């Protein structure tokens, strides 16, 4: 690892907190899945769906479709690819990790659909969890981690976090508005995506930490001197 590739490591406290948060989100995801599968909160979900659908107007259709597009697989994969291209020269390992998270996240959002089998409000299958929300949360999580790991100034980080959070809210809201999901699916998407990205960040940090440790080990230093 060259000096240009150095990324800020997580402290033990960070790792502990992120681990606990990942477990909490994973538990929330499975709880939401159980509620969805058993239709235990269906009346509440129906109530939300009715209220949202009652507010539909032609003026909002296009903005909502655009917002929904932000969380679609095509846009997220394209955005991740652009981020990888930008980072590739300076942060190869981090770029590869980002690509791995994007690919496994895409796969995970599909596999997560097997956890609860139910129909969407528009009767199409695979309602839970909302893959759009799942995907945008992973993207936002990775963005926050990247900015933090690359030591970007706190002001910019805050700006990116707020913009990302707004994107998550827009995507989640648009999925409800477009009658593509129940509110439980969207909550499941947020929880599942958050659990996945937190676990992903922990894995990346551990892998990069191992590489750092390898780079700084005495044998490696001797090899470098001998070379």
């Amino acid at each position: 690892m060259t000096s240009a590739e150095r990324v800020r490591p997580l402290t033990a406290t960070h790792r502990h907190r992120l681990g606990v948060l990942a477990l909490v989100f994973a538990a929330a995801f499975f709880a939401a899945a159980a509620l969805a599968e058993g239709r235990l909160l269906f009346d509440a979900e129906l109530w939300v769906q009715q209220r949202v659908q009652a507010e539909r107007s032609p003026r909002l259709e296009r903005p909502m479709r655009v917002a929904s597009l932000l969380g679609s697989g095509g846009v997220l994969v394209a955005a991740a690819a652009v981020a990888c291209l930008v980072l590739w020269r300076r942060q190869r390992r981090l770029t590869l990790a980002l690509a791995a998270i994007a690919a496994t996240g895409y796969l995970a959002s599909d596999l997560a659909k097997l956890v609860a089998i139910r129909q969407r409000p528009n009767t199409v299958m695979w309602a839970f969890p909302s893959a759009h929300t799942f995907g945008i949360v992973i993207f936002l999580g990775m963005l926050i981690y990247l900015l933090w790991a690359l030591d970007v100034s706190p002001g910019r980080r805050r700006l990116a976090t707020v913009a990302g959070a707004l994107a998550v809210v827009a995507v989640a809201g648009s999925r409800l508005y477009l009658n593509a999901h129940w509110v439980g699916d969207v909550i499941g998407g947020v929880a599942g995506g958050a659990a996945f990205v937190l676990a992903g960040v922990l894995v990346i940090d551990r892998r990069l930490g191992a590489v750092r440790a390898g780079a700084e080990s005495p044998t490696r230093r001797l090899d470098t001197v001998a070379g």
Partner: protein
Amino acid sequence: MAEPCPRCGRADVTGDRCPQCGVAVALFRASLDKLRRGPAAPVAAPAPPPPLAPPTAAATSRRLVFHGSGPGLFGIQALNALLTLLTLGVFYFWAKTRVRRYVYGETELDGDRFGYHGTGRELLGGFARVAAVFFIPIALCSVLPEVYQAPDEVKAALRRLLWLIGLLLVPVAMVGARRYRLSRTSWRGIRFSFRGGVREFVGIFVVGTILTSLTLGLYYPVFITQRQAFMISNAYFGSRKLDFDGRGRDLMRPFLVMILLFLPTLGLSWFWFSARRHRYFTEHTRFGLTRFRSSVPGGRLAWLQISNVVAVVLTLGLAWPWTVVRGLRFTFRYLRLDGPLDVADVHQDARAASATGEGLAGLLDADFGVS
């Protein structure tokens, strides 16, 4: 004027909200309508309750479409198998429900998907009731005479009694399973139901079984047609009944031809009879002005069924999801609904049904072809 609730079917809803399920009636109707019209259509205030579907004046042809895929069903089955193992079999009932939800939810007619509303807990309850009421006493009747070395006459009498009980339980299970499944099936928010009496079907079944045995199988076409007539003509979609006007004697000739050709064709003539029976049953089924049609060819049915069995055996069961999907796509490819599908005057008329019959069908390990 009192109207039925569009969600739960309660008949006497006079206010804005249904006193039973609490749904805002006008809002619910408007959202259903929006769902059907799609998001691009202009949105109107949720004022007059719209019809369930625009009545079609001209006679048209509709098809059922299955959107599911082998990998999708395989994923569900894989997780089901894992959870069933981890829970020592308890998850089996939820697994069954998940597969049905998937299959029904991926089946579309006229732009809307079917829905399955059964739950694993209901199936578990049904199974527990059946086990307590039927299975344990029957098991005791079979085991106790052996344990206490009862006289041979007693054992023979008990065997006959058990056979008789079995003969009676099969039709009870068939009706119960059909009642349960239809009551948990919906299309466009309207539930199906089954209103046939158990006693009537037990009569058809027992008489049919005995006559089929006495006539060395010649009564079989009449028997299966009577069974089909009972199962179809007692089925309802909301408040409207399905009709069946087939007669058993119409299948007698194809059945005799099948028997004559059975040995020369090494049993393959069965598939041609099976396809003929399927076409006949389908073509004699009506829903209002809509008549069902099927053009399933015998050769293709034979190929489908034989290749499915071979695939399941060779893959040790792993190909099962693909065979299910293949079977459904095959059936729907040759099935169509002719005539106007006017469901505007169909209203919710759901009937309660317990899962006991379904549990009995599960315990007897028989699907009975009534799904």
